[in-house]
């Protein structure tokens, strides 16, 4: 059998595809979850295949084994032709200069070279160190994704990404009450594009006792009083705020009404460009080049080189995430944001690394400058409307701040707001010394749903007059 990508490209060209993309993807994913001293789930997945996207009068996509490359190419063209009758009259993808090259994410210790015994040697002591709890859990995840993309325009790029994450979670229960606390955040932890050195650096065993203690303290804590509070969001929670209220509404396909059946629409319509999104302190951008960040790469799944695109600049809404077609429809620069979660999925507009530029000062200084407020830490629940305006988030812990000092701990903190007025109330952002990337493994979008990893760089920030339920 010849090179399947070459076979598919040749077939696409022979069938007269205006644009053809052939993407081979090999994924290796390992999940290791422990609970109460036992392995709860140990799964190792190796998955490979070929995805072919063709543009004739419409778009078609076929996915399957690489051995079926020519058939998949034929099928993609057939589907594109069938879609033509209902497709847009004009599908403008511009002209991308062909690119060639290789890209790898940094990796010192191959996570797949670390034995399960050694991984359990991290998780089991960490969960044991959390003390007396209803449930003590730990998770380590490792991913390796190898892709090669060839296009009928001459692009040929090969990439390898290695990602890891780790977390511990403590559940304390007392009668009808249950409280949870996690570190660095729940499930996949902080997913980054680095090797097992990242897992070791999370120091789960060292941090675990504090996690268990805080879960027990939350059980005994008072519920946070409802009303208006000044809140400081820690990095983990702020990253999800960014994700839901900036990342998603700036996805160009949502703006064009193409995500309506599942994820919804966006309030950031074309006529909103130049309008106020947040305070002058707020600059939000997407950059797929961020080294070591979970949403990074060399080229997106259309072969567009990773780049930075501003989404909000000093509080003004200025741009969207986009691919070739959506960029043309929105008359906006290409954002290199077309990604698919596997060979079996069609690329769609996704977040990459959507981040908030840092300000100045440390978290201690920010707390010290807060007269009365709450430091909200790590997410527990999330909900936002389909335009990405009305949101409600629950956090694991709310540290009470009085006269610049942490004085106590509340439980069950839920805050709500509307995106522009919330970001408009941002009056302080910590500096580069507090800034880090927070990676998430399961951003869901598309229909059928795709789950992909993204990242958000941020430092803790303060928002005034936030409604606590």
């Amino acid at each position, binding site marked *: 059998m010849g090179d399947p990508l070459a076979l598919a490209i040749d077939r696409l060209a022979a069938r007269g595809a205006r644009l053809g993309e052939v993407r081979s993807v090999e994924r290796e*994913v390992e*999940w290791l*979850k*422990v609970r109460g*001293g*036992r*392995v*709860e*789930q*140990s*799964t190792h*997945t*190796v*998955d490979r295949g070929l995805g072919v996207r063709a543009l004739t009068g*419409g*778009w*078609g*996509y*076929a*996915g399957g084994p690489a051995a079926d490359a020519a058939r998949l190419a034929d*099928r993609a063209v057939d*589907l*594109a032709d*069938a*879609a033509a*009758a*209902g*497709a847009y009259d004009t599908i403008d993808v511009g002209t991308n200069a062909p690119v060639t090259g290789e890209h790898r994410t940094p990796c010192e210790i191959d996570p797949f070279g670390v*034995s*399960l015994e050694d991984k*359990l040697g991290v998780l*089991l002591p960490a969960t044991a160190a959390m003390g007396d709890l*209803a*449930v003590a859990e730990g*998770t380590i995840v490792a991913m390796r994704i190898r892709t090669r993309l060839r296009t009928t325009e001459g692009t040929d790029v090969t990439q390898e990404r290695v990602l890891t994450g780790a977390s511990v979670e403590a559940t304390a*229960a007392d009668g009808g009450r249950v409280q949870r606390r996690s570190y660095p955040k729940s499930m996949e932890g902080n997913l980054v594009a680095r090797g097992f050195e990242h897992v070791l650096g999370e120091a789960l065993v060292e941090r675990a006792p504090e996690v268990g203690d805080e879960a027990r303290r939350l059980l005994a804590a008072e519920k946070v009083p409802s009303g208006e509070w000044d809140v400081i969001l820690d990095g983990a929670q702020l990253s999800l705020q960014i994700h839901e209220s900036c990342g998603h509404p700036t996805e160009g*396909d949502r703006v064009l*009404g*193409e995500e*309506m*059946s*599942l994820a919804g629409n966006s309030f950031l319509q074309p006529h909103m460009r130049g309008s106020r999104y947040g305070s002058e302190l707020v600059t939000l951008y997407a950059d797929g080049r961020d080294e070591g960040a979970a949403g990074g790469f060399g080229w997106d799944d259309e072969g567009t080189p990773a780049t930075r695109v501003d989404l909000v600049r000093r509080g003004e809404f200025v741009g969207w995430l986009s691919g070739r077609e959506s960029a043309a429809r929105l008359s906006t620069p290409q954002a290199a944001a077309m990604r698919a979660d596997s060979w*079996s999925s*069609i690329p769609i507009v996704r977040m990459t690394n959507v981040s908030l530029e840092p300000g100045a000062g440390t978290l201690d200084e920010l707390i010290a400058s807060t007269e009365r407020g709450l430091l909200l830490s790590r997410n527990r*629940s999330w*909900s*936002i*409307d*389909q*335009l990405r305006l*009305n949101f409600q988030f629950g956090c694991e812990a709310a540290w009470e701040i009085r006269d610049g000092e942490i004085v106590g701990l509340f439980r*069950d903190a*839920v805050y*709500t707001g*509307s995106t522009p007025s919330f970001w408009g109330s941002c009056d302080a952002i910590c500096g580069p010394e507090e800034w880090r990337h927070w990676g998430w493994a399961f951003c*869901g979008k598309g*229909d*059928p749903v795709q*789950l992909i990893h993204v990242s958000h760089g941020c430092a803790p920030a303060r928002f005034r007059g936030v409604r606590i*339920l």
Partner: protein
Amino acid sequence: MSAPPSPERALSLAADVVRLADGVPLQATVRAGRRRVTRLGNGHVLHGAEVEETRVMVRAVVDGREGISFTNDASADGLRAARDRAVGAARAASGEGGIELPGPAEAGAIVAVDHHDEATAEGDPAAEGRQIAAALDAARRADATLAGVRVAMSEARAVANTAGLERSDRATMVQARLIATAGAATGHAAQVAERVADLDVVALAGDAARTARAARDPHPLPPGRYDVVLEPPAVVELLQWLSIIAFGSRSWESGESFLSGASGDRITGDRVTLYDPGPEAALLPVAFDDEGVARRPVTFVDRGVAGEAVHDRVSAARGGCQSTGHWAVNDRFPSPGAHPAAVVFAAGAHAGDLTRELAHGLHVRRFHYVNGFLDPKKARMTGLTRDGVFEIRDGERVRAVRDLRFTEDILDAFARIDAVGDTLGAPGGFWHHVAGCDAAPAILLRDFEFTGVCE
């Protein structure tokens, strides 16, 4: 396309894996599937897609502990590598052990189910294209644009293990989820069926478009408590969250579920019966789980009284109860433990339109972005309305209403149900599955709390 997935081939592949056991208790679960998708957006066909994949799960048991690997490489080398990974993981695992693979006797006799339709499995691209075109046209004629998806799936599944168990089945499913947009207003219609002949995409498009047109110029209403009629898609979204927080083995074991320790206690109103119908489901029934154990129906709430959670053989052994045949492993979104395949809210006795019973209230078609993690013991959830909310006075629709956010303790809310419709709706969920489908009737519920208004 190639031939539709075959249970015989799936079983043959599973048997190939089992032959690699080399003295280690081994299980293979094979899923051979095909999926065709037409995605719509902004009144156009965005793309057509087809994907075929055969996935093999290999489960090894060493000293009563398990390790699991997945592969879609069905070559001899690929299967051997998957087997080696699973065995390695089992050897490294820690814990009390006690896992055994079920033989035919332990797996139990299964109730034969058949929801395979040849026409759905084969597909007819030309006919499907005409239906899609007609649906787009139907929306346009109603001055609306259509977005959405039509998905058709066929799957063959097989389970085999070294204890002599061999089972296979096949299934088809077709689903359409459509959103019509008229100005700033939207309407939704969705349906799941086993056979393509039972799916009327054009009718769904018309429904969605009519709702969108009616939902234009919404008025704001203040937050507060309102009597509501919730349509099946709204109720189904609540059921999906109840399943996540309470009906699975993991939350039951840890005490986080409101069913934990509450069996036989009244926990909500007597109009509420929630269950997983298993092989008795009217739509997409399931005969056995992914380790081949016979599935049985499970009642989570029986006329307001707490019942049981679902279990697999592992969680059942720990809990001192019986497996309900809900073993599965998800490697894409790890969620250990047994989970329901479907949750059904039992139909009631009320025939006709429940909104006629509202003196003053809201007709809610659908919820969006519900989250049930606020306080799982109380089933406290938040979410938003979407795709059409209407104010009702004296049984008549008076105007469209701006979307609202609710925050409610759902068990308490369900205790305020006054009437339950007599017809189940199955709109489908977030994921597309060939097995298991949530279903619910419309319900009339008093004093449902809305805590916010959308802009």
